[in-house]
């Protein structure tokens, strides 16, 4: 198990190299001269030249990349232009807010998705099963920013029951925080909820007809216990994989949701960084999201082994 985790951690290295190369060249492709953004359109050619020199922009792209990578090894992600502080510091400060939102969303999506999927699987083809299929299709086809806007319209403007923007300061208490989190959490969770519910439904349906379920029934075990202790534990590995993938999506989905709800997280910062050509922040943000994606997958794999004793042995 330990060796397995170490091996998986080492696999992160090629992922980092791949992601940095991709973002480095993609941001290079963004049109416009960075010195324009930094110094404004009225700056003299002389000062532009000085800035290019100090930022290393006059070097070849490969040299720039190597400089970036050697800085990365020392933990230096560069200086954010719009925040005028180190990128790592900006990301570190905002990460907590994003993690809070993503964590709440994956919690809601998992609990509601597994419950709904199981509930539908108990009566395949029934009214509630078809109902779930329709809801899943609905949630899956709805862009998250659009859902966010609709929720703001309903709960913020018409009903006026929930705050629609920003994050309260820590002094205002848990209830205020939860109220502010409600709409962005639902928006962020919707898509994942649908995917998790659909996967749970099919996974439970697959195991509920297994011989060991019949064995349990033949010993007088109740349907509730069968679902809880026989069907769900054997369906969970498949669901976990989906939850893991969804968690990765949630962090990237946070870019749109945080923008719609002005939630001060990494997503909002990255959106602003793209508009203001804050290239170091874009690169750092993407690198961090990629790392989170990989780490979550590692955790899912470890949990997968935990839930499936057969793999544990081999």
């Amino acid at each position, binding site marked *: 198990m330990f060796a397995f985790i170490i091996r998986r951690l080492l696999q992160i290295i090629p992922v980092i190299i791949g992601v940095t190369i991709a973002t480095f060249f993609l941001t290079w492709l963004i049109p416009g001269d960075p010195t324009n953004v930094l110094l404004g359109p009225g700056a003299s050619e002389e000062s532009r030249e000085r800035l290019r020199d100090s930022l290393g922009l006059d070097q070849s792209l490969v040299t720039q990349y190597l400089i970036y990578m050697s800085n990365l090894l020392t933990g230096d992600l560069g200086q954010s232009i719009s925040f005028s502080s180190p990128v790592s510091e900006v990301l570190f400060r905002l990460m907590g807010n994003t993690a809070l939102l993503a964590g709440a969303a994956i919690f809601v999506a998992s609990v509601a998705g597994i419950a709904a999927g199981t509930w539908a699987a108990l009566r395949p083809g029934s009214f509630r099963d078809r109902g779930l299929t329709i809801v899943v299709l609905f949630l899956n086809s709805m862009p998250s920013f659009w859902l966010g806007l609709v929720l703001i319209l309903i709960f913020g403007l018409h009903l006026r029951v929930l705050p629609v923007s920003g994050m309260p300061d820590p002094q205002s208490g848990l209830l205020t925080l939860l109220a502010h989190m409600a709409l962005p959490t639902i928006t962020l969770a919707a898509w994942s909820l649908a995917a998790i519910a659909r996967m749970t439904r099919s996974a439970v349906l697959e195991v509920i007809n297994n011989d060991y379920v019949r064995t349990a029934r033949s010993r007088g*075990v109740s349907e509730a216990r069968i679902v809880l202790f026989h069907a769900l534990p*054997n369906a969970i590995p498949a669901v976990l994989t989906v939850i893991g993938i969804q968690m990765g999506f949630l962090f990237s989905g946070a870019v749109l949701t945080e923008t719609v709800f002005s939630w001060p997280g990494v997503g909002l910062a990255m959106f602003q960084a793209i508009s203001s050509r804050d290239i170091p922040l874009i690169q750092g943000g993407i690198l961090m999201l990629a790392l989170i994606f990989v780490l979550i997958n590692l955790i899912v794999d470890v949990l997968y082994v935990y839930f499936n004793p057969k793999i544990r042995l081999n």
Partner: protein
Amino acid sequence: MTGKTQMTHPAQPVEPILSVDGLSVSYGSARQPLNVVKDVSFDVAPGQVLGIVGESGSGKSQTVLAVLQLLAEGGRISGGQVRFEGAELQSLSQRRMRKVRGQGIALISQDALSSLNPSMKIGRQMAEPLIAYDGLSASAARKRCTELLELVGIPAPAHRLESYPHELSGGMRQRVLIAMAISRNPRVLIADEPTTALDVTIQAQIINLIDDLRKELGMALVLITHDLGVVAGIADRISVMYAGRIVETATTDQIFAASRHPYTRALLSSIPKPDQPRGERLKPIPGLPVDPREDVRGCAFNPRCTHALASCTESLPAMIAAEDDGQHLFRCPVDPFRPAEAEGPRARLQGNGGMS
């Protein structure tokens, strides 16, 4: 007491503990049903052993699943009734039916690996109903499970409770399944092909174990198999099924010595015998088992029967009593194996197929 000596004095009417009367099982829609069990009847008295024999697809397993109301999705009892200890099972509520399962009638299924929950330790799945329904404490249930594993001959039972099913051998898993089936002291034990997935040497051990437990715990046993040799040594009565119907039912001695249905005869001659001359080939039954989707008119065995007459394809033969006592019934109008003259009991065929 062995049932066999009792069966030679059949006049003694014993109230059956499990009684199946005219049971039919269908899958699919009511308009286009797929009938997999047709008008099956049998009685099992306390302590008695009934063997149900037939090829795969003959409806044996579906019959017992219907008895326990554990038919797969889409399956239903389309006729007849099942009585257990006098109560008609179809009229019971879900809750009362659940009490019958495990405590009244227990099932040992055929594939022990797929029949055990792969993600649950042996001890936990054994103990589940004991703790949840029989009011045992965790430690009492543990003690009981250890005893049960010991009873079915598993070495180091306390250690095995901590194992997962995939960590055990096939024979060991089948023993665990048997221990689970008897854990709630059932009155009737149904074993559905309990040895199919096992090596021949283990097969005999498992069958003997089941029979020993039956005697020790005073259970009735319904043993389902495709192998007449398996039931030969232990069954009091044998019912032979073909294409969803019972075609012959008799005491074990009568089946082996004086069976009257061509299908039973064909099954018997396909068993290898120890005294068979070298080089002589086994006689397989020509043709294939009936596809249940196909509706064969008359006797379902007629396409494969070497004795079939024109009348066999027209109407379903009725059950005929071979003798006056009504113990031996068969479904064949041709009756090609009728004893030529009134003779004494014929020499018993050596039909144990290497089991004993």
